[in-house]
């Protein structure tokens, strides 16, 4: 805990300074609210408006959780099958990259046409943005399996299954977690985008309503919530990583603040 505080005060200080500069600039240049509200105003609204938008937050969190679990499972399954079947890897790898070249903004309305306004198209959008970083990171982890250990396992007469579960999988776990960390932040973005398509509630809906009625302050409330959620998911994965991977010598100064600017 102390270590976290020690590492956390620097980015916190920078953010606080940023807010102060922002606040001062707003009052100094007399910027109108509808153009850019002051941070104090945004935080004030965040608290006073909580009962009005809380159900949007819960709906988004639920969507993110479901989408993230499904998306990462797909990522893991894709990585494992591509790794174990070389033919699949050769034929599917380019397709994997292609799946990321289609802009989600373009694909999303199509998904609505095909699958309606239910939860399915939303899950598909989140899965599409989530699975890729995980699949790539995990495949990379498998590929970089320690050669000496592999040699030992083969000399010891290990079966393909034993090699996978005893060597390749645990060896790739740190890579899996780097993929999960990226996907965790992406999944919040994916959920918001999928909510723009047509949903009855969610942060994405709240944001659309706010911007179409020129409530810039509410748009910023939505932005702050999205940032906070992304950060929260990121920290959750980091905590899970710490619980799972206990064997590595602790590294100095982990990347705590990478998602702050999202």
């Amino acid at each position, binding site marked *: 805990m102390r270590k976290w505080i020690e590492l956390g005060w620097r980015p916190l200080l920078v953010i606080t300074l940023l807010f102060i500069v922002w606040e001062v600039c707003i009052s100094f240049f007399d910027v109108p609210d509808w153009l850019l509200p002051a941070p104090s105003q945004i935080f004030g609204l965040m608290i006073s408006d909580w009962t009005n938008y809380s159900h949007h937050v819960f709906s988004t969190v639920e969507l993110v959780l479901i989408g993230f679990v499904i998306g990462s499972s797909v990522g893991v399954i894709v990585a494992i099958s591509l790794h174990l079947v070389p033919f699949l890897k050769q034929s599917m790898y380019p397709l994997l990259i292609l799946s990321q070249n289609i802009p989600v903004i373009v694909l999303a309305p199509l998904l609505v046409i095909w699958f309606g306004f239910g939860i399915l198209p939303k899950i598909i959008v989140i899965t599409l943005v989530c699975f890729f970083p995980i699949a790539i990171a995990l495949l990379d982890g498998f590929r970089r399996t320690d050669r*000496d250990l592999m*040699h030992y396992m*083969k*000399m*010891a*007469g290990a079966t393909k299954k034993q090699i996978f579960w*005893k060597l390749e999988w645990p060896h790739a776990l740190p890579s899996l977690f780097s993929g999960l960390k990226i996907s965790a932040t992406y999944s919040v973005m994916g959920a918001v985008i999928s909510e723009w398509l047509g949903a009855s509630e969610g942060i994405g809906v709240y944001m659309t309503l706010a911007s179409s009625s020129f409530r810039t302050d509410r748009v910023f409330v939505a932005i702050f919530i999205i940032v906070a959620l992304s950060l929260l998911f990121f920290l959750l994965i980091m905590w899970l990583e710490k619980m799972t991977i206990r*064997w590595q*010598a602790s590294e100095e100064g982990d990347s705590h603040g990478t998602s702050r600017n999202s």
Partner: protein
Amino acid sequence: MEHLEIRDIQKSFGSNRVLDGVNFSTEKGEFVSLLGPSGSGKSTLFRMIGGISSPSSGDVLLEGNSIKNHPGSVSYTPQTPSLMPWRSILDNVLLGQEISGKKDEEMAAQMLERAGLSGFEQAYPHELSGGMKQRVSFIRSILSPQPLILLDEPFSALDEFTRTDMQKWLLSMWSEHQRSILFVTHNIEEAIFLSDRVIVLSQRPAKVIKEFEIPFERPRKEEILLSEEFLYMKKDIYQEMRSSHASANY
């Protein structure tokens, strides 16, 4: 009956001949060293005994049965300790047993204790020194059920003092467990100090040039390293290797 028999093994990679009819055998419980210059194809030979590479011709027999292309017939201690960083020391030494099926945790804990590693059962490899890791690696081999242990230059990465300690430790473990050992090295002194018999390989393409019986009685003490017989032995082997080296170059 011979324990391990290498029967006229040849191996070429394309037009590059690596092993040119290697023949030797070891007895049960014997400590045999395979001595050869680096790059002489020792590792290739090991891969064949290990069953993960097949010879162009010839056969590998263990207790009368061919183990060609049968991985896991011998127990193997690699050059680097090759411990799994995510496993505790205890789980690491159990790995060989896990692969072949039967785990004996009590025995493993006992072995670790006798190897001076008690208290480290739950530690992870990165917390251990190089010598300790190599000991763990060797214990993993002893605990594996196979009757023959292959050691592939296990001490080459250690400093001189640690190496001497490790050699003495290895001999004590060996005399205690009476397993057959095939030890690969390019260090003449190490080969003489440890072995019952030293088999000298030529340069590429490798074949057996000569075998030396090492007459020193066991248990061996460090002092014999400086005795006259030891130095004569070393000179003999050195000259044998030197002449093959020269004839290969000219």
